[in-house]
């Protein structure tokens, strides 16, 4: 039975190694393309905030939460805490860039938005930030996806994506869900 010589063995392994490198290279190129063409990065906003005084902070007091329009910038601020998001429902316009900012006053939570690539952990001590543009209208689910205690199963918010014409800010620049 012809058994390859040691050199042949090594050569065949190296050939296979090239195939491996090519596969992996394709994935790399895809990631780099997304990074340059669509400015996609994993959510990595290293910004501190004290979880113990979160509701006393300027940014994350209750009345400040939800969707706020400031000029061209649309920010959606939410709290993730045991065991609900506040606000339970937020509005976003289709086709315009929005920035989600989330914080937790207690334990680790996490969010995803179904049908989108919005996904981030919410770690007490930090403000989590996701930049995205919603492409389809409708009510999307934003569940808490990290175990946060006994009420984890009942913790989710709604992201209501509306047409830009239906996205109207009030005098303070805030936009709320019609029926929460």
């Amino acid at each position: 039975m012809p058994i390859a010589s040691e050199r042949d063995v090594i050569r065949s392994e190296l050939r296979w190694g090239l195939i491996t490198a090519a596969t992996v290279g394709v994935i790399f190129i895809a990631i780099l393309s997304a990074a340059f063409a669509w400015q996609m990065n994993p959510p990595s906003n290293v910004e501190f905030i004290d979880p113990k005084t979160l509701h006393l902070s300027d940014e994350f007091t209750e009345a400040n939460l939800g969707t706020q329009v400031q000029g061209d910038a649309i920010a959606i601020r939410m709290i993730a805490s045991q065991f609900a998001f506040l606000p339970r429902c937020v509005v976003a316009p289709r086709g315009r860039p929005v920035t989600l900012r989330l914080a937790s006053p207690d334990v680790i939570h996490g969010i995803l938005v179904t049908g989108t690539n919005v996904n981030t952990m919410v770690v007490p001590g930090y403000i989590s930030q996701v930049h995205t543009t919603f492409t389809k209208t409708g009510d999307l689910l934003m569940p808490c996806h990290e175990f946060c205690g006994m009420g984890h199963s009942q913790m989710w918010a709604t992201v209501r994506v509306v047409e830009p014409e239906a996205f109207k800010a009030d005098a303070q620049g805030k936009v709320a869900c019609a029926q929460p």
Partner: protein
Amino acid sequence: MAEHPPSDQTPAGAPAEQAAVDRHWRRLALAAVGVAVAVGGLLGFVIIPAGQREHSHLSMDAAMRRAAGLEAGSPAHPQPPAAINSLPVSQVSWDPAIMQRPAAGNTARGAELAGQVCAACHGETGLSVTSAIPSLAGQTSYAIYKQLHDFRTGARVQPDMTAVAQSLAVGDLASIAAYYAAASQQYAALGMRDLSGETEIVRVAWEGDTRRRIPACMSCHTNGVGGPIETPALLGQNREYMAAQLNAYASGARKNDVYGRMRDISRRLTPHEREQLARYFQGTL
């Protein structure tokens, strides 16, 4: 089955040959590692931020600082402007220093104050005979402290309690909280009860209602399991008082639950459920 044929010298032959083979492998290994680290590092810290900074209008230095985590924000997107200020719903926050206050409260002073100020409504032993007034005996010190503090600042409004709380010094709040939590546990007001109720009510209490996003009451109201530090004990509390609170949360009349946790839940419970849950948690002795 024989193992590999033994060799007299090294696996690679003579020591000089061995050194040559070793050197070759060492160089290959270090080169591979070096290339990987260089490629990963250059791309991650320099090239990607360089390519993304046009979109965020950042200088190269700022983009790299963001990519390294030395500054908040993404290298690819501008940060949103700062938010507008607004008033918090409660001034009470918890950190070890503040949590120490109810724990270290002077229970002798607390007993004195409780007798002078609280017992008239809340009962001699902290067990209130009026169903609309809560029992305090055995309640957690954090819960009592927060409510007293919120009455004092107006975060929570109830004519009698507002007057009482505002007449007390801040240090007294801690003493009263400590007293009721510790000293009157002998009366075991809260905690030892037989519970019974409609099946659906019991289900809401222990399993919650996922469709309506109502977590099980016990997911927070079991001491230590979940929810904010100021979560009060419920078992054995007075029915009328609990029902009134749930209704007050639902209407928004009471809003010192930080981040609206109880307002949220109460609104989604039906009035019948609020009544029945209050009845369930009061239980029977």
